[in-house]
């Protein structure tokens, strides 16, 4: 039996080319020694060096990182709490409504999320800057975290928490000492997901930012309007690298946890 027919090979090549060719070209050109973006003049890391000299860019990178760390951490805490309550609280009036409302921002157009947040911040008179971007990113990243965590919690054996209570834990201790360590892989991949989402968000950040704060995506977007520079290519390549790293580790963590869990369950079933 032939594993790869010609047809399969061609579709695979075209599919992946379609997805990744632009990025590959971008990364290749970030190592171009010429100032002209479209003319290849040999390999060089010059633009990465210049990028390191560019105060503006470094400031933006620093702001982006701060926003990403704070918002993903906040989103992870809130998202985990929301998931825990929705999975554990059993049936209460309006439960379906609540879970629907948590997941709604997943499908909400970003423009609308951004606009409504902007109106809110203006309404309550909050100065726009890093803080408002953090809040905005927390809002939309938290739904992703709660989806990831609640799918783990639904398969979590409730009797483990009961055993912890039985042995003298308060409900909070039971969560901290038993539930949290067991669902930790899901929480961490939720955090990484939130982190990457925040890192590359342009739309919501543009709505909620002020003159004092510029994130990298905003910086890149405005710089590109004046013409693509090799420096931007270098910066984008770094971001691609970071995001790839985040997504790969998130999926590796949840995959390894799933394998370990399957092993546990198999062992339990064999009892």
């Amino acid at each position: 039996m032939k594993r790869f027919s010609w047809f399969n090979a061609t579709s695979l090549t075209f599919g992946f080319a379609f997805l990744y060719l632009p990025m590959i070209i971008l990364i290749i050109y970030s190592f171009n020694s010429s100032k002209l973006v479209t003319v290849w003049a040999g390999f060089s890391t010059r633009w990465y060096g210049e990028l390191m000299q560019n105060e503006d860019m470094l400031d933006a990178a620093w702001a982006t990182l701060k926003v990403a760390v704070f918002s993903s951490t906040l989103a992870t805490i809130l998202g985990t709490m929301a998931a825990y309550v929705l999975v554990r609280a059993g049936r209460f009036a309006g439960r379906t409504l609540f879970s629907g409302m948590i997941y709604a921002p997943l499908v909400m157009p970003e423009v609308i999320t951004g606009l409504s947040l902007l109106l809110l911040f203006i309404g309550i008179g909050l100065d726009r800057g890093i803080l408002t971007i953090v809040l905005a990113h927390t809002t939309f990243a938290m739904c992703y975290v709660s989806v990831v965590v609640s799918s783990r919690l639904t398969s979590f054996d409730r009797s483990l928490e009961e055993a912890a209570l039985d042995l003298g834990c308060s409900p909070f201790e039971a969560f901290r000492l038993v539930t949290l360590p067991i669902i930790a892989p899901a929480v961490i991949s939720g955090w990484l997901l939130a982190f990457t989402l925040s890192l590359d968000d342009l739309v919501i950040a543009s709505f909620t930012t002020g003159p004092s704060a510029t994130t990298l995506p905003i910086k890149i977007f405005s710089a590109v309007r004046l013409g693509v520079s090799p420096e931007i290519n270098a910066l984008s390549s770094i971001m691609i690298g970071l995001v790839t790293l985040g997504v790969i580790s998130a999926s590796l963590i949840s995959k390894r946890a799933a394998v370990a869990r399957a092993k546990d369950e198999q062992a339990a079933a064999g009892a």
Partner: protein
Amino acid sequence: MTQPAFSPWDDPAATPLIQFRNVTKRFGTFTAIEGLSLDIFEREFFALLGPSGCGKTTMMRMLAGFEDVTEGQILLNGQDIAPVPPNKRAVNMMFQSYALFPHLSVWDNIAFGLRRDRMRKDAVASRVDEMLRLTRLEKFANRKPHQISGGQRQRVALARSLAKAPKLLLLDEPLGALDKKLRQDTQFELMDIQETTGTTFVIVTHDQEEAMTVASRVAVMDEGKLMQVATPDQIYEAPNSVYVADFIGDVNIISGRASQSGDKVAIAWAEGEPQIQGTTSRQFAPGQTCHFAIRPEKVAISAQKPDAPNVLRGKVLDIAYLGNISTYHVELPTGTIIKAQTANTRRIARRSFTWEDPVWISFSDTAGVLLEH
């Protein structure tokens, strides 16, 4: 016996440790426990026996605090326990599913409850080591639960619940996954622990032999109701219903119409067969349906017609050889099958009858019990 027997349930002045007062538990419209009242006394080893789904785990969970009582009350030391959360109850439970913490080693699993009590480090360590020795798990202390066998996991769960030496210990099928030898050893360990610590045990088991061995009293349940609560020998020798007689051990049931004079009852159970003579303290109306229950080991089997109050003839249908004893299935002329058990005091080749042999079965008039339902 020189020392007075332990039987607080017969003492009207004794105050029970646990009181179920008319407890009903519903899950939605399904009634799992119905109007159940029960007293369990301190230092008891109380066994719950019943078919799957009859509500044994539910009773345990109500005691541990994981299920609310729908109606009625449960009192612990005279106090209603409904408002007390599970972590504040001096009750530990061994879960039927073990519920071991997968992220902790065997050692840490057992230490978990002790650490919650802010116990000193060395005290925790010595207690855990003691528990490991007791359950013979010393070699596995550093393994995670998924790295040990099912029986070992069960022992970890047992050790974890024993570690805190609670006032009341609930064991939900604690020994089901152990082999016979280890199970017997652990049963004796449990009885030992019970004697030295004075802990009250409530144990669920599917193994009636286990209930008989360890329990001070046994409760037989069916569909959320208690059928009988009594000492193991009472349950075995004097069941109060056909259900209990049938559930505990092997039994022959012969149903017929009673005619009573004094404590003697004659049961007409089949045309052309002699009436069965029994003894009872109950009252049966003339012609009332009654059930005569007799254990196989109380039925004798012989080749010659013996002299006994009850003698019936039949032929050997089947022989179940169990090593130390044999059970003969004897078919009477009516088609009824009666089981008779004898100890195999002779070598198997020398037994006096075999398949299809005509035999006599006999029993005394006090060997069986008469039941109304």
